[in-house]
């Protein structure tokens, strides 16, 4: 029995890059910054480089403190409610910025993004299909 899904938008991605990487924009006030971020179903949250938060004028240490754990250790981060845009779809999301400026993670995780979308993936062809879910 086939299962049919429909999506609002289609996004081809570069299969040559490490991970499934899509252009991502975060915005706060009149500022916005765009950068490549990886989709990571193993991450509970969205994490972006500290410098991206600073470029929005956010005082990083004034955000919601959270320890983040990875396979290689833990680090401190701070959460902010920002606007998040991927493939033309805009969300209101709580995203986190590491305290350490040398952590160069940019990932779209579950809370703040994955749980807000319906996602179809054909990695063999580098195709991503997306709809807003909530």
């Amino acid at each position, binding site marked *: 029995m086939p299962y049919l899904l429909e999506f609002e*938008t*289609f*996004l*081809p991605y570069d299969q040559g890059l490490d991970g499934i990487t899509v*252009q991502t*924009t*975060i*915005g*706060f*006030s*009149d*500022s*916005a910054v*765009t950068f490549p971020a990886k989709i*990571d179903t*193993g*991450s*509970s*949250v969205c*994490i972006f480089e500290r410098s991206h938060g600073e470029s929005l004028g956010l005082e990083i240490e004034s*955000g*919601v*403190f*959270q*320890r*983040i*754990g*990875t*396979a290689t250790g*833990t*680090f401190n*981060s701070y*959460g*902010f*409610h*920002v*606007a998040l*845009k991927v*493939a*033309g779809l*805009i969300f*209101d*999301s*709580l995203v986190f910025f590491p305290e350490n400026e040398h952590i160069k*993670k940019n*990932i779209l*995780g579950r*809370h*703040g993004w994955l*749980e807000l979308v319906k996602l179809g993936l054909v990695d063999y062809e580098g195709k991503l299909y997306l709809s807003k879910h*909530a």
Partner: protein
Amino acid sequence: MYNLFVMQVEALKQIKRQIVLLDPESKRELADFLQHTVEDSSDALPTHISDADRHAQTEWIKTNREKYAHRYVALEGTELVGSGKTFSEAKQEATEKGFPNAFVTYVFSEKDVVSGGL
């Protein structure tokens, strides 16, 4: 600068000549790709939530996180208009109270070590 302009005009002509050779599905893919490229170059991220509310909601989470830890909350301004074990529960409660655009987010405890992937 003039040379760059001439190069772009030539490149565009060449691309257009190649595009006519594509099949309809490939043309649609290209159209989608170009649309997202143009959209992603824009600075504006219009949403219905004001900066003041974003700030206030971040502060609300800092203040109330332990009370609502491991649940979803729905906030309209700084007013709690819904909560639940799932996103949809919190969203539904907010919608039933007349706030369909409330900001819904999951709340972690300050003591949690949250998975950040690899």
